[in-house]
């Protein structure tokens, strides 16, 4: 049932924006909010409904960092690498978190689809650098240990849910 409902919801979103090509970005944002990524079929669908080409939609979706064409983990960890955080060694945090999650080179998502680890240019929390977000929740004034602790808390919670 999953797939068919995706089209229905996408159709509603497109209708809400009046089938207006200029609204492509908010449309894709809402679809992504719903499905956590942009499946190819939905992009073709959007293109057809808006009277534009699939290339155009793909071109827009791949241009903006916010859009993801691959499914991400349940928890998206974004470590800020803005100047203030960088200067306060945010990249050490990244290494520590990646190491803890045993992520290999080029791999950003854990095999169990729980965590995706990314860097982001600037969260605007510069006063509390170095910072990271997990699914939007901001954690500031971090150290390697504190960052890993945040991840560990989540892992514990997830394990508890499974039992």
């Amino acid at each position, binding site marked *: *049932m999953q*797939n*068919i409902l*995706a*089209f*229905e919801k996408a*159709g509603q979103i497109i209708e809400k924006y009046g089938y207006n090509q200029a609204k492509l970005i908010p449309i894709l944002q809402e679809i992504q909010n719903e499905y956590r990524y942009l499946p*190819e*079929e939905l*992009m*073709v*669908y959007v*293109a*057809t*409904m808006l009277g*534009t*080409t*699939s*290339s*155009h*939609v*793909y*071109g827009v979706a*791949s*241009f*903006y960092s916010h859009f993801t064409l691959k499914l991400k983990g349940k928890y998206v960890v974004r470590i800020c690498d803005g100047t203030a955080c960088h200067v306060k060694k945010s990249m050490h945090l990244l290494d520590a978190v990646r190491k803890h999650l045993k992520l290999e080179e080029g791999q950003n998502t854990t095999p169990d689809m729980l965590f995706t680890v990314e860097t982001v240019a600037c969260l605007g929390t510069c006063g509390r650098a170095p910072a990271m977000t997990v699914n939007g929740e901001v954690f500031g004034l971090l150290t390697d240990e504190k960052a890993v602790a945040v991840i560990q808390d989540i892992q514990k919670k997830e394990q508890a849910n499974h039992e």
Partner: protein
Amino acid sequence: MKTNQIVTVDNKQVPIEGERNLLELIRKAGVEIPTFCYHSEMSIYAACRLCMVDVEGMGMVASCSTTPTPGMVVKTSTPEIRETRKMILELLLASHQGDCQTCRKGDDCKLLALANRLGVRDVRFKRKGRNLPLDLSSPSIARDPNKCILCGDCVRICSEIQGVGAIGFAHRGAHSIVTPCFERDIATVECIDCGQCTKVCPTGALTIKSDTTEVFTAIQSKDKYVVAAIAPAVRVAIGEEFGLETGANAVGKMVATLKMMGFDAVYDVSYSADLTIFEEGTELLGRVTEGENLPMFTSCCPGWVKFMEQYYSDYANNLSTCKSPQQMLGSLVKETLPDVVKKDRKDIVFVSIMPCTAKKFEAKRDEFRVADSPDVDYVITTHELALLIRERGIMFNEMEPEAFDMPYGFNTGGGVIFGNSGGVSEAAIRFAGEKLTGKKTDDYIIREVRGEEGIREVEYDFSGTKLKMAVVSGLGNARKVMDNIKAGTSQYDFVEIMACPSGCINGGGQPVSADRLARQKRTEALYRTDKMLQLHKSQDNPYINDLYTNFLGKPGSHKAHELLHTHYHARSRIKSDRIETPAETDKLPVSICFGTGCFIRGSQKLLSQLTSFISANGLEDKVSLDATFCFEKCDQGPVVRIGDETITHCTRVKAIEALTEKLNLHANA
């Protein structure tokens, strides 16, 4: 000359005469500004930054995006500009992958030419390509993304001029690429194979898919009888590849060259163009009399046919059922020649020489073969022919002209003007006019269909029968006309549509000319050829009349239909590679098409209805409901597949009936 509307270019006074930008004005002054991304017919992109010039008071500006204003003082070369241009080229070369010596683009590469022209002697940056995979999936176009310099010319010609948009930019920054959507192979997306992209691409990123090796093999194999067939537009362009003036008609030299290369017979596609007029003209008159399936659209352009199948498949019945001249000739030759030359059909190789890349796609269509023997084996473009000739070492200019072989080498002027936009229509009017009025005339020139605009409308009155026609070239224009027809704001009886702007003389396979008047000159050359021929009207072609008398019967006969006519089908734009996996093997798979055609006809409503039905009857564990694109039956939507049965014009009732039957719902199971 208004003395106050002057721009000074390199100390020369140049008047402003409505030029679009400084670049055009500087060209007028006699200086060729280097540029990759500027084309006069397309939108201004301003990305290559090569066209920078120095304007007093403004510093360095991009001349393509600067409007000339009176009093400007321009220098097209300063030490800074020179260094900048070299630097830009160094940057491009640093990420350009591949060896010039073995590159498909060969001598035509603009990047190489510009590097030479600007005197680039060193690339001081580390050279690092991206190792992207080649895409050789299309029969017409070869893609090598590693050669791409991201000028965007192909993107703009495909979307702005051709109205297709099969390729576009993706990703960002140094990761940018030009690609079909989702980085698919180009053959799986909506490309209609017109090849205009290969003509504007300055490097070897987009080139014509070559069939020269296969052709060589054929002509050099002893047991094959190889036939060449030359299209009208080729003869007025091939000479340009060998230094002849633009539009010179080199048909005699071509025939001689082909024979020397080893072709067993050389035929003229203008012959079958005449044949097309017989069939299509008769078809048109029939429809006009019945008042059915109008407007009638021409079907000789395979790019247009694919375009129509993808975007306007509702009008599939309006296309003429006639095959294109290429396919008609291939079909005819393969049918008649075995008896004449005493060879099996499979040993006859038909090579058509075309100005067109889409013809390569056309030749491979499933409808155009008998069992697994295609009517047309290979298509090579004008450009590829030139490469073949050069490889063979034949000195084209020295060849003494020779004539086509008969019977498929005789044509009237009507057949030869097929090569330019308006030609088919003119030939059709020459035919239909006489039939409708019942009078023979010596007049044959019909000026009204001639011209340079991409959309021309013409109205004729033949003794009371009025025919309203449109002559269209460039698919962007085709879209406009089709949308008008759909909306009801335009009505026509006959519409000629050529995918390439100005028609086949500007096809994807034609040489890229530096002469900005190339299209006009080649068109003029075809009209001149028409004039020089003894016969101008297709219906006067004696060989074709013989063909009907001795073989086909009459236009539209059963035999004619078998050999010379075809049918069309809707096409999905993006090939879905969803495998029809029965996800849970014991569930009945139900797929509803969500393509535009079906959507417009109510597939979404059908979905809700079916969803309710399924949940109301507790069938969730028996049925797996899925959405899909596209069953390519767009004019019969909504289309639903239940199990292995495809239901067209599906309604709630029909779907439930099928579900009930397949699940044995009413049986006491």
